[in-house]
């Protein structure tokens, strides 16, 4: 589904990703862990197509297409989704209108008809239950005045509506209390299927108790320095990142 080869990228002349290789197949959940500043969020942003980042080398194949050649909106329409670490507040843009516009642009790209406001409302009411959100959110401006937990739920709601093939969760657990974390993780688990895949970017092992990964990768200084199964996450939790740092410097 996603094949990353020797991806190198940076911002404002500073190289952050120094050669990433990763292969994600349908149905898999990959966790990417690592200390602060290791490049986890950069990887997520680069895959989503944030224009500020510069690609220095490497290639990314997504469902048989060159991902790096695509505009952010094309990536989304092809089925890539980034759940933002810091969801953006957009005053004056109604959440319901925003979601319906996004859904219909994606549907149009796939050759489907537009969804009517009535059908959209029926569908979204079901999705709201998934993240235990009140329908009143739909009439508020996108993320404006939302609490940290509400913003993250809103990201999962958008994922449920847009039904991506590959979802990248960028530190979705940060700033969440345990109850909100469970709601978000439950939502994600219900969306898992044999056809889609997830990349879960996180600093802590905690989220991985709820979203159980098939693979765990440790990112340090712009490179994946270790890969394993879910036991690697537990090991990191017990020993911290220091061992990784020491090994990388040796």
């Amino acid at each position, binding site marked *: 589904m996603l094949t990353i080869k020797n991806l190198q990228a940076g911002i404002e002349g500073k190289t952050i990703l120094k050669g990433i290789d990763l292969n994600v197949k349908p149905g898999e959940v990959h966790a990417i862990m690592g200390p602060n500043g290791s490049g986890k969020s950069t990887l997520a942003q680069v895959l989503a197509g944030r224009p500020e980042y510069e690609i220095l080398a490497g290639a990314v194949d997504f469902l048989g297409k060159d991902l790096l050649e695509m505009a952010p909106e094309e990536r989304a329409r092809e089925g890539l989704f980034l759940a933002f670490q810091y969801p953006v507040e957009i005053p004056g843009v109604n959440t319901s209108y925003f979601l319906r516009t996004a859904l219909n642009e994606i549907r149009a790209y796939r050759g489907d008809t537009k969804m009517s406001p009535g059908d959209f409302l029926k569908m979204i009411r079901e999705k709201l239950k998934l993240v235990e959100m009140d329908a009143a959110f739909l009439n508020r401006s*996108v993320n404006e005045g939302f609490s940290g937990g509400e913003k993250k739920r809103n990201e999962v709601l958008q994922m449920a509506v847009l039904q991506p093939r590959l979802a990248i969760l960028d530190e979705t657990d940060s700033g969440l209390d345990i109850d909100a974390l469970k709601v978000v993780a439950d939502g994600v688990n219900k969306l898992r299927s044999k056809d889609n895949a997830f990349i879960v970017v996180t600093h802590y092992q905690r989220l991985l108790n709820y979203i159980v990964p098939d693979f765990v990768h440790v990112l340090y200084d712009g490179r994946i320095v270790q890969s394993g199964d879910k036991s690697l996450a537990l090991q990191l939790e017990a020993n911290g990142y220091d061992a990784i740092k020491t090994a990388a410097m040796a």
Partner: protein
Amino acid sequence: MEPSQTSWVEERSLLRRDPANPFLDVQKRALEQFQRSGFPGARDERWRFTDVSGIANGNWSTATERAATSALDLQLPSWRGEGLCIVFVDGLFQPQWSRLHSEDGAVELTPFSQLQGDLIDVISRRMKETGQIEDQPFLNLNTALMDEGVVIRIADGVQLAAPVTMLYYHTAGLDKTYHPRNVIIMGAEAQAAVIEYYHAASGEHYFRNPVTDIHVGDESRLRHYVLQRESDSAQHVSFTRSTQGRNSLYTRFAIDSGAALARHDLVVELQGEGGEAVLDGLYMPQGRQHVDHHTTVRHLQPRTFSRQLYKGVLNDAAHAVFNGRIHVAREAQKTDAIQYNRNLLLSDDAVADTQPQLEIFADDVRCTHGGTIGQLYEDGLFYLRARGIGEETARHIMVHAFAGEVTDRIQDAALRDQVNRWVLERLGWEE
């Protein structure tokens, strides 16, 4: 000041020297004041961004020929509904399209040309008082050359449901000048909405110089809308004064989408304790359009409140100016004044100048102000695109949301819908 620059003004003012004209004295004085000041130039601080030499040196026609309005298929605005309205076409009052009286007689619209009796004295006194405001050459120019206009009198306690519309329409004639005078006098404990609408059927060059003089009585509420949709070649220079009584509320929304040059001077005087003014503006210049708002809010009594939000969406090589003066008198303790001007530049060649001016003589007051000039918010744009929304659409959504902060506050629903359609149309995004 070149003497020739005011010659067209003098020539035109002679046409007003009818001995039966009840405002002759006021007009003569205004002309004298205007002759002393002349047209403002680049050295006048309040005019340094706005060049009116095109008006001063204009070859303005003095002809007052009657337009062929009988054949005109005038589209009356959709928001009018059951409301009263007064229509002027090419400067002339049009009774056939106007509705001047409410059934109960609580509201009365009188064209200037038909003023009689005590109303003349009321208006004369008001004109003299307003004429004392300094440094307003275009106010004097309007008074000196005043051609038509309307007096709207709203009696005590009247609660008007539908807005009253003043429609000034230009259909034909090159190099015309218009100097309409509007006076709105509201009694106590009344509620009304008044819409001033300036519009043109053609892209011709003309100069419109309206003055609107308003009094909002004690405990009264007025919603005032100024819709400037002149021809793209027109020059529009307006002056508005609003005086407010105790616990009154003056809510204003002004939109500019027409005119090559638009300049608005607004003076709000909070003369009664507890008076409140809410002033919103939206301007959307493009091409080489120039729009300039100069506001002055005078807090004269305790516990007065003012809030201004002027927003601009500038494209191409447009230029926008905002200057907001807040004056708090010594006795106006517990004043709360808020002023924001926000500009969105859609092009590298667009320019916005924003300047607050605070004159505070009381000590227990709160004044908040801020001006911003910026590009489209990149984080928001990326967020929308990351959800599959195309770049063009994402930009539309962001700009519309920016303007929506002011247009959403329009309380009269039919007008709000119309303004939203204009905003989309102006930005070239008709759905």
